[in-house]
């Protein structure tokens, strides 16, 4: 089918003209251009051969290199050196992780009922004035917290003081 179509196409007048012109052009191109000489080709072949020869490693050189490597490896006194001279001793280091759980201990606390005294004294206006001027630090003795106390936050503080933390008071 295709062959018939191709033959028909080849035999058509237009295509024959195209083929003839194409052949003429092809021959003109072949004849019209200069060809490089055979000597230059051979020169190039020789050059390539030399390059590949230069790159190639002789097996004798390879064997000699291996022998030298073996001699160096066996004859150098690495093992004869005293062990003390070694800079470091290889050892195995085991890394362990210490973990401590939180331990809760029940502590018995003696509950004391606190009586709050309410004193109501009549204060004169002069005294009131004087109390306002004088700093409370000067008048009230506030001891420093005792670190040996089991509850340092409350150490040295009386319950009657107004600035006592409410949450601690609740726990008590």
């Amino acid at each position, binding site marked *: 089918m295709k062959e018939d179509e191709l033959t028909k196409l080849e035999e*058509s007048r237009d295509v024959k003209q*195209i083929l003839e*012109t194409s*052949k003429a*052009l*092809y021959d003109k191109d072949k004849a019209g251009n200069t060809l490089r000489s*055979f000597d*230059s080709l051979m020169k190039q072949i020789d050059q390539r051969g030399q390059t590949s020869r230069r790159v190639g490693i002789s097996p004798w050189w390879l064997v000699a290199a291996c022998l030298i490597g073996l001699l160096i490896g066996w004859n150098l006194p690495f093992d004869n050196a005293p062990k003390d001279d070694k800079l470091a001793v290889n050892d195995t280091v085991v890394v362990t992780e210490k973990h401590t759980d939180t331990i809760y201990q029940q502590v018995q606390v003696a509950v004391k009922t606190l009586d709050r005294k309410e004193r109501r004294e009549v204060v004169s206006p002069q005294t009131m004035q004087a109390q306002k001027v004088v700093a409370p630090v000067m008048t009230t003795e506030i001891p420093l917290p005792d670190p040996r106390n089991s509850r340092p936050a409350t150490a040295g503080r009386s319950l009657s003081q107004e600035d006592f933390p409410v949450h601690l008071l609740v726990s008590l």
Partner: protein
Amino acid sequence: MRIFHSYKQDTDEELMRWVSRSNTKAFEELYTRYARRMQGFFIRMLGYDIAKAEDFTQELFLKVYESRGAYEEGRTFSSWAFSMAYNLCKNEYRHRDIVESHEQELNYNSDATEEPAFEQMYDRAVFENQLSISLSKLSGDQLAAFTLRYNEELSVQEIARVLDCPEGTVKSRLHYALRSLSQSLSIYNPIKP
């Protein structure tokens, strides 16, 4: 001994047998027979780049010499050499995308689709010019099949071996190439009434 023997009488295949034994004289004879043909093929395939075609011809014969040991006995030398040449062209197409740049390199002012002036219609030079443009617009496979069949006059079987494809594929490539050329050159054909 073949010291005084002339290699001119030998076939290509016999010469190749001598070349495989590193015979330079036989190689020279092969070069004389095929270098111009190969250069013509490269000129056509590489878009009329003469310098490149010369380089490729040299490269091809270098390859022929280097792979002389790989030459299969019984295979025609021409198809073996053309298949190597075609592979070189394919590599070139892959690397440089020469088919597309070819039109710019040729720098033709006229376009194939443009209608030429009346006095130029039947001018052979214009027709040849347009034929070159149309050939350059063919794909690499079609151009190779066309050149080998109608310019190098190889058989379809040989072309199939060169292009490494079935004979049917070669025929269809030839068919498409001819149809494409005939369509693009129909208005330029000087013999058309």
